[in-house]
């Protein structure tokens, strides 16, 4: 919940960019991060998200553009004069100081003498009250991570920057820390800017996610909005999985009708991020969990008005809560379908002829000029299609 009436503490990046020699890490970028929000910069490694964060922290000088905190231009301020603190990727705890002194470091540098109470409160907040006298290397990864958060938070920064803070933790601990950080953010109400390459992490924690690719923000929005309405193939593939089918527009109205692999599909016109003149090309997208799978023998029972694609199962994998199917069809190969394991149809085995059907309202359309593979594992997320969007 961002408070739009109070913009005094917003982070505003205007035309900010960073180049190293001939390499452009961040293309000129405008971004406003509302005060009190949990904002995530999401992207694969090398997409410029960490550089952007470091420019907010002052650890990197922007090549062009300005950084504002509220109404104050901090572009030329050194990091130690900015009301911003960072939780570093590898925590960067001071190995020669104990946990108490690590957390008190920022307070002492600002000349605050009586730090005992504040440090004690902060240790309690991160549940490390009994570790004050320990050295960082005596703590586990998760505990070190909490110290790093406490060391930054105690200064009540205007903005807390988190650079892949959970990257070094194992999966279970990550999940736990995600909830923990979210709890702390709600409790203290400070703006959090979180850099991560883990889309699930970004979606669970953040109010707003900016998906970055090749030094640009590809799309910005609430997690559910990004997931449901991706505007580029990169976002469609990087956030979860999407089935993208090449299609040609036949008819345009409130719904757009397209043909793909000999069959007709419909999708809402307002979910088309591309030109929808008849004869135009389009990439039709559908999330795997929105699709229902029916055996070809039961095709007659499928309700009218649903999009249908016929195909053959080439692979299945059972993962407990659901089963993943890979289906080849004339419309596209290796279509992914996730079915909840409520009633399992034993006929749905590799080789079976099936019909995929879904509600047309769940279909989205993307510009066909983009690479269908952008943002997938094989693309590794480092390339961008120049004329995307």
């Amino acid at each position, binding site marked *: 919940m961002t408070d739009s009436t109070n913009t005094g503490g917003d982070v505003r990046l205007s035309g900010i960019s960073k180049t190293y020699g001939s390499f452009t890490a961040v293309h000129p970028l405008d971004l406003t991060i509302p005060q009190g929000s949990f904002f995530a910069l999401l992207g694969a490694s090398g997409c410029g998200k960490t550089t952007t964060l470091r420019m907010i922290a002052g650890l990197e000088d922007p090549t062009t553009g300005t950084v504002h905190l509220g109404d104050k231009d901090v572009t030329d301020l*050194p*990091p*130690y004069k900015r009301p911003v603190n960072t939780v570093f990727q590898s925590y*960067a705890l001071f190995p*020669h100081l104990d946990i108490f002194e690590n957390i008190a470091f920022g307070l002492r540098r600002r000349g605050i003498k009586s730090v005992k109470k504040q440090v004690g409160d902060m240790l309690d907040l991160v549940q490390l009250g009994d570790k004050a006298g320990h*050295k960082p*290397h005596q703590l586990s990864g998760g505990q070190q991570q909490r110290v790093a958060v406490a060391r930054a938070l105690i200064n009540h920064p205007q903005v807390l920057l988190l650079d892949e803070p959970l990257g070094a933790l194992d999966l279970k601990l990550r999940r736990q820390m995600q909830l923990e950080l979210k709890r702390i953010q709600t409790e203290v109400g400070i703006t959090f800017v979180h850099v991560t390459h883990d889309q699930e992490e970004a979606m669970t924690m953040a109010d707003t996610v900016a998906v970055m690719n090749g030094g640009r923000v590809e799309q910005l929005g609430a997690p559910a909005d990004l997931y449901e309405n991706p505007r580029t193939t990169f976002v469609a593939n990087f956030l979860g999985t999407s089935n993208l089918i090449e299609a040609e527009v036949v008819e345009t109205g409130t719904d757009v009708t397209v043909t793909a692999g000999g069959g007709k599909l419909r999708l809402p016109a307002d979910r088309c991020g591309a030109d929808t003149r008849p004869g135009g090309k389009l990439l039709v997208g559908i999330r795997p969990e929105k699709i229902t799978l029916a055996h070809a023998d039961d095709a007659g029972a499928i309700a009218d008005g649903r999009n249908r694609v016929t195909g053959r199962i080439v692979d299945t994998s059972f993962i407990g809560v659901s089963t993943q199917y890979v289906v080849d069809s004339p419309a596209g190969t290796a279509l992914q379908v996730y079915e909840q394991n409520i009633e399992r149809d034993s006929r749905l085995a590799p080789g079976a002829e099936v019909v995929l059907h879904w509600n047309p309202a769940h279909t989205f359309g993307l510009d066909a000029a983009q690479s269908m593979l952008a943002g997938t594992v094989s693309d590794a997320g480092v390339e961008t299609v120049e004329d995307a969007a």
Partner: protein
Amino acid sequence: MTITDIPRAPEAPEAPPAAVRKSPARKRLVPYWLLLPGILWLLVFFALPMVYQASTSVQTGTLEQGFRVTWHFATYWDAFAEYWPQFVRSLVYAGTATALCLLLGYPLAYLIAFKAGRWRNLLLVLVIAPFFTSFLIRTLAWKTILADGGAVVGALDALHVLDVTNWLGWTQGDRVLATPMAVVCGLTYNFLPFMILPLYTSLERIDGRLHEAAKDLYASPATTFRKVTFPLSMPGVVSGTLLTFIPASGDYVNAELLGSTDTKMVGNVIQSQFLRVLDYPTAAALSFILMAIVLIMVTVYIRRAGTEDLV
């Protein structure tokens, strides 16, 4: 090796059982075999000479009649009573040279570790480059550098540095050669690389992100150095000062070549007692006294520096 039901690899059963039984014993002996050369070396070149010197130090006699062990411990007291000024001088000169090495070496090591970029290796080679010339020749070169009426002395005189050093008693008149300052200069120069290299090693190991973290937590560059960089380089400071102070306190070449009779260090006394006066017991006793003093000082120093607290 408690898992028994893992099928053996087909090659394994071919091995003769005897060899299998023999290997653990052999394994246990391996460390001792590896230690043997080192232990032999220490025995022959350290332990035996020490015992020999210790026995020499409690002998009495003359060169003509031969020396006999008489447990004459008074030699220690007599030697110290006579040569204590040289002991004091050794420690003061070595201490001053160590402090100067630290002052000169730290900025240089810092520069090489953090600011040199691609020049780093070249600079390190330059630090070690003097070792390609003999220690004696390098020390003799300082005779020319500090020569009376030379450019260095002239410049120091013109800048009135000599007035200050004369007042402090480090130099005499318009001479630098044959004064305490010349000896300390020689010691500083000769032991500087032993200071720089450990300092560089410990500075270079510091994670650059710690500097960023300090800056992020409101520490100015000066505070970052005082609170993060310097404490983390303490292992280098300790080993650098030890590697400089210990050999410098026993050095006699610099005092011999650059100093005068008024700048004799304990090393010069030991050398002349052994090789010119031929009073072996006194020479041996002096050696042990120096060793004891240095050992005590180093122990106190290491305790104080608290290096065991550092990672």
